[in-house]
C-alpha cells in the first residue's frame, strides 16, 4: 500500500470513529443542546475525514473536488439545521430567539 | 313489390303502436286534444294494417319480417292465421277501449303516462300474437308484463302498489321460468320457427332425452300458465283488478290472460306438437288443471261481493276453456278453444266496460248496491245482460258456440268428463251472473243516484264502446257459420294447420 492509501485508511477510520462517538453522544447526552453539540461536531468532522479519505483514493482531482463540495454543502446544511433546532428549543424555553443570551 | 310491402306490414303495425306510445309520452299531460287524436289515429291505423294483413293472408301472401337479434336467435314476426286471430281481436278491442278510456279517464291525472303504456301494451300483445319463434314470443311476453305494470299501479295508492307487487311477483316469476325453458329449448334444438304440429327437431330431441324435454315443456307451460291464470297461479288476476276499468277490460280480460292462453297454444301445438305433448304425459295434467281452474274460478266468483272481483274470477274460469280446448286434443275442441279466445274477449270486455260504467256513473262497485240499476242505465245493463248470458253459454250467443265445440270435441276424443266440467261451469256461471241480472232488472232501486250533468245513462264515450262489443257478442254467435266469424276463422286455422289432430 502506498502512503496515500495508508493515509486514506487512517482518515476513514478516524471519520468512522467520529461518527460513532457522535452517535453515542446523540443517544446518551442529556438535553437538546448537548445532543446537538455531539451530533454536529462529530458528524461534520466525521464526514470531513471520510471525504478526505475518499479523496485520497480518487482517480482525478475532479472527483476529489466533488467530494470537497459534498462536505462543504453538508457543513452548511448541518450548521443551519443545528441553528434552527437550537433556536426553536431556546424559544420553547422562553428565550427571545433573536440572539443567544 | 307488392309482396315486399306485405312483408313489412307486421313491422309497420308493431311500430304504429310503439310510435303512438312515443308520441303520447312526448306530448305530456297538458295537450289533451292532440293526445286524443294520436291515440285514435294510432289505434285506427293499427286496426287497418291488421285487417290488411288478414286480407293478405287470405290472398295467400307470406307476411313475415325477421332480423337477427343474436347469433342463433332471431326476432321474427309472422302473420299466420292463428296469429291474426289474436292480432285482429287485440287491435279491434284496442280501438274500442281507447275510445272508452279517453272518456273514462277524463279529468284524472297522469294520462300521458297511462296512454303511453297502454299503447305499449298493445304493441306487446301484437308481438306476442305474431311471434314466429319462441325467442320472439318470450321477448314480447315479458314486454307485456312490464308495460302493464304502470297501468296496474296507475292510481298510485297503497292498494294499487300492493296489487302491483303481487302482479309482478307472479308474472316475473313466470317470466323467469319461461326464460329458462326457452333458453334450454334453444340450447337443445337451436332456433326453430313455430311449426303447426310441432317442431321436428323437438320431436327428435324428445326421443333422445325425454326427461329433459318434459322438464323444458313444464318450464315453458309454467311460464305461460301464470298469465293464463291457470290454477294455482291465478292469484294475481283478482289483485290486478285495482287498476282502472279500461285496464281491467282490455288487459286483464283480454290481452294479458290471452297472451298466456295463446302461449299454451303455441307451445303445445306449434312447438312440441300435441302428439308429443301427450306422449310426454303433459296434456292430461294440463286438462286436469284447466278443469280445476274452471270450477275453482267459478266457485270463487260466487263469493265475491264486488262486481269487478267477481268478473275477475270469472275470467280465471273462462280463460281455462282455451287451455282445455288445446289439451283435449281434437280438432273440434281446438276450434272451440280458439273461438273462445275471441268470444271470451268480446264478452268479458263488455262486462268490464259495464262495471266501469256503473262505477263511473253511479259510483257503485258492489253488486248488492246495483239494485234497480237496469232502469236507471238501460243500455249499459242490456249490454251487460247479453254478455253475461253469453258467458253462461246461452244460445245463440258467442259463449254457447265455443262451449258447444269444446263439448263435442272432447266427446270425440272420448273425454266425457269434459261435458261434466262444462255443465258445472254453466251452472256456476248462472249462479253468479243471474243474481246480478235479477238485481239490475227486477229489484227496486234502494238508492237515489243523482244524475250527472243531466244524464241518467253513462257518457257517450263510455256507452258506445259497450254497445259495439255487446253487438259483437251477439253477431259472433249469430253469424258463427260464416267463414270470417271468429269460429269460421278458428276452423280455418285448425283445418289448415292441424289436420293431423
Amino acid at each position: 500500500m502506498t502512503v496515500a492509501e495508508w493515509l486514506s485508511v487512517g482518515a476513514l477510520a478516524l471519520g468512522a470513529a467520529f461518527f460513532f462517538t457522535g452517535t453515542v453522544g446523540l443517544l446518551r447526552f442529556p438535553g437538546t443542546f448537548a445532543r446537538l453539540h455531539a451530533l454536529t461536531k462529530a458528524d461534520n468532522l466525521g464526514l470531513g475525514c471520510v471525504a478526505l479519505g475518499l479523496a485520497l483514493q480518487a482517480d482525478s482531482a475532479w472527483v476529489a473536488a466533488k467530494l470537497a463540495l459534498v462536505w462543504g454543502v453538508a457543513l452548511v446544511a448541518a450548521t443551519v439545521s443545528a441553528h434552527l433546532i437550537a433556536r426553536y428549543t431556546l424559544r420553547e424555553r422562553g428565550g427571545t430567539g433573536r440572539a443567544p443570551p | 313489390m307488392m309482396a315486399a310491402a306485405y312483408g313489412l306490414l307486421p313491422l309497420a303495425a308493431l311500430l304504429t303502436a310503439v310510435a303512438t306510445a312515443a308520441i303520447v309520452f312526448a306530448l305530456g299531460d297538458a295537450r289533451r286534444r292532440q293526445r286524443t287524436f294520436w291515440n285514435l289515429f294510432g289505434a285506427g291505423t293499427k286496426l287497418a294494417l291488421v285487417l290488411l294483413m288478414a286480407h293478405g293472408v287470405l290472398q295467400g301472401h307470406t307476411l313475415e319480417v325477421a332480423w337477427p337479434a343474436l347469433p342463433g336467435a332471431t326476432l321474427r314476426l309472422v302473420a299466420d292465421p292463428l296469429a291474426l286471430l289474436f292480432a285482429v281481436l287485440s287491435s279491434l278491442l284496442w280501438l274500442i277501449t281507447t275510445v272508452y278510456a279517453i272518456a273514462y279517464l277524463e279529468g284524472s291525472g297522469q294520462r300521458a303516462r297511462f296512454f303511453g303504456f297502454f299503447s305499449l301494451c298493445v304493441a306487446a300483445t301484437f308481438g306476442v300474437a305474431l311471434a314466429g319463434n319462441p325467442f320472439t314470443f318470450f321477448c314480447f311476453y315479458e314486454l307485456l308484463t312490464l308495460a302493464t305494470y304502470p297501468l296496474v299501479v296507475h292510481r298510485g295508492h297503497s292498494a294499487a302498489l300492493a296489487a302491483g307487487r303481487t302482479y309482478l311477483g307472479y308474472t316475473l316469476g313466470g317470466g323467469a321460468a319461461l326464460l329458462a325453458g326457452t333458453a334450454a329449448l334453444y340450447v337443445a334444438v337451436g332456433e326453430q320457427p313455430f311449426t303447426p304440429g310441432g317442431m321436428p327437431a323437438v320431436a327428435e330431441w324428445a326421443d333422445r332425452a325425454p326427461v329433459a324435454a318434459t322438464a323444458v315443456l313444464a318450464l315453458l307451460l309454467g311460464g305461460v300458465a301464470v298469465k293464463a291464470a291457470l290454477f294455482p297461479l291465478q292469484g294475481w288476476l283478482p289483485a290486478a283488478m285495482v287498476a282502472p276499468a279500461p285496464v281491467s277490460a282490455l288487459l286483464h280480460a283480454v290481452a294479458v290472460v290471452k297472451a298466456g292462453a295463446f302461449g299454451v297454444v303455441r307451445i303445445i301445438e306449434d312447438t312440441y306438437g300435441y302428439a308429443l305433448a301427450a306422449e310426454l304425459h303433459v296434456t292430461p295434467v294440463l286438462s286436469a288443471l284447466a278443469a280445476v281452474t274452471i270450477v275453482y274460478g267459478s266457485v270463487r266468483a260466487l263469493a265475491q261481493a264486488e262486481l269487478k272481483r267477481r268478473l275477475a274470477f270469472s275470467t280465471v274460469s273462462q280463460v281455462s276453456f282455451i287451455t282445455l280446448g288445446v289439451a283435449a286434443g281434437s280438432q273440434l275442441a281446438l276450434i272451440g278453444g280458439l273461438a273462445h279466445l275471441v268470444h271470451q274477449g268480446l264478452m268479458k270486455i263488455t262486462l268490464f266496460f259495464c262495471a266501469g260504467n256503473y262505477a263511473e256513473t253511479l259510483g257503485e262497485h258492489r253488486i248488492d248496491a246495483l239494485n234497480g240499476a237496469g232502469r236507471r242505465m238501460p243500455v249499459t245493463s242490456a249490454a251487460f245482460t247479453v254478455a253475461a248470458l253469453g258467458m253462461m253459454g246461452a244460445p245463440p250467443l258467442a259463449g254457447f258456440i265455443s262451449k258447444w265445440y269444446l263439448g263435442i270435441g272432447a266427446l270425440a276424443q272420448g273425454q266425457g268428463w269434459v261435458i261434466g266440467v262444462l255443465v258445472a261451469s254453466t251452472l256456476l256461471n248462472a249462479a253468479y251472473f243471474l243474481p246480478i241480472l235479477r238485481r239490475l232488472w227486477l229489484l227496486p232501486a234502494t238508492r237515489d243516484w243523482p244524475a250527472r250533468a243531466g244524464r241518467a245513462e253513462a257518457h257517450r264515450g263510455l256507452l258506445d264502446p259497450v254497445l259495439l262489443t255487446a253487438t259483437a257478442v251477439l253477431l259472433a254467435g249469430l253469424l258463427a257459420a260464416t267463414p270470417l266469424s271468429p269460429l269460421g276463422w278458428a276452423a280455418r286455422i285448425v283445418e289448415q294447420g292441424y289436420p293431423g289432430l
Partner: protein
Amino acid sequence: MAAGGALSLPLAFLLPLLTALVVFLLGARRAPWLPGIGALATVAAVADAVRHVAAHGPQAYHLGGWMPPLGVELYADGLAALMLAMTAAVGLAVTAYAGPYLHDGHHHQEAERFWPLWLVQWAALNGTFLAADLFNLYIMLELVTLTAVPLVAITGDRASLGAAMRYLLLALLASLAYLLGVALLYGGTGTLHLRQVGELVGAGGPAAVAAALITAGLLLKGAIFPLHTWLVPAHSNAPAPASAVLSALVVQAGVYLVLRLWLWTFPALLSPAVGWLLGGLGAASVLYGSLQALRQSRLKPVIAYSTVAQLGYPLLLLPLAAVPAAAAQAWQGAAYYIVAHGLAKAGAFLAAGNIRYSLGHDRLAGLRGIAPELSVSVLALGLAFVSLMGLPPTAGFLAKWQLLSGALGGGQWPWAAVIVLGGLLAAGYGLRVLAMALAAAPSDEPVRRPPQRLPRRMVAVPLLLALAVYLLGVSAVPALRLLEQGAPEALG
C-alpha cells in the same frame, strides 16, 4: 420500425388528455365549449378505431415504433373496441350532462375542477382498454384511481370524504398487489407484453402467485364480492356525472381486465377449480349486491348495489370458458353485459341525479307523488332498470340470454340458476324504486315544494342513454361480429 395499426389508437388516449390539459390551461369558464369539442374528437377517434377493427381485424399500434417486448403496444381487438365505444358513448353523455349540471351557479369551483379530472380519466380509461403492456396498465390504473377519488370527494361533505378515503386506500392496495404480480411476471418472462407473457409464463408456481396477486388487485378495483365494500359509499355520495362514470366505466375497467388477463395472459392457469372460484365470486356478487339493493332506503345506494351485482355477471364467463359447448355464447354474453351495464348504469345514475337535483334528496319514500316535471327522468330511470333486470327488449336481456344459453349449453346449471335468480332480484329492487315513483303522493302531505327546474339537456341525456340500451337490444349482431375480431380461439 413501424407503428402497425391505426393512428386512432394513440389518439383515443391523447385527444382527451390534450383536451384536459388545454382546459386546465385556459380555465373551464373561459372555454366552456372546449370539453365538448374534445369529447367529439375523442368519439371520432374511437369511431375510427372501431371501424378499423371491424374492417381489418385487431389493430396493434407500436408506440415509438418499438416492437414488444422493448416497446409498449396499444392493442385493439373486438373486445377493446367494444369497451372503447361504450366508453365513448358514456363519455359523450356525461360530458353533455355535466355542462349544465356544473354551470348552474352552485358548482362554479367544481366545474373548474371537474373537467380536467374527467377528461384525464377518459384518456386513462381508453388507455386501460388499449394497453397491451402490463406496466403501462399499472400506470393507467393508477391514473384512473387518482382521478376517480377526487370525483368521489368533489362535493366535500363528510360522507363523500370518508368514502373517497376508503376508496383511495383500497385502490392503492389493489394497484400495489397488481404491480407485485407484474414484477413476478417480468422476473419470470422478461417481457411485459400481455400476450407474450401468456406465451412464456406457463402454469408453474410463480405464475400462479402472480396471477393470484394480480387478480386480487383487479377484483378489488372491480368491486367484486367480498372486496366490494368501498363501492357503495363512494358511488352513492358522488355527484351524478361522477357516479355515472365510476359505476359505468371505472369499476368495469377492473372487471374487463380480469377477463382480459385470464383469457389472454393466464389461460394456462384457468383450471376448472380456478374458474369455479372466480365464477363463484361473481355469483356471490350478483346475489349479495341484489339482496343489499333490496334493502336500501335511498335511490343512489340502490343503483350502487346494483353495480356490485351487475359486475358479477361477466365473471361467470371464467368457469364457462373452458367448457367448449358453453364458451362462445358465454363470451359474447359477458362482453355484451359490460356494454349493456355501462350504458344502462350511466343512464340510471344520471336520471337519479336529475331526481336528486330537482328534489334535493333521493330517499325512496320521498319519491311518492313525484312531480310531472320529472316524469322523463323517471322514465329514463325505469328504462335503464329494465336493462339491468335483463328483460327484453334491452341489451341487458340479450347479454343475459347469451350467458344463460352458455351456462345451459355447458350443462352448468348452478350458473344458470344464478343468472335467472339475479334477474328476478334485480326486478325486485328496480320495481321497488319505480313503484315509489309511480305512486301517488300521500294525501295528508302538504303541497310539495316545486322542484328545481331541470335544464333540458340534463333531461335528455339520461333518456338517450337509456334508449341506446334499447337500440342495442334490437340486435346484438353488429357488436358481436365486432367482438369476434381477435377473440381467443376457444371462444371464437
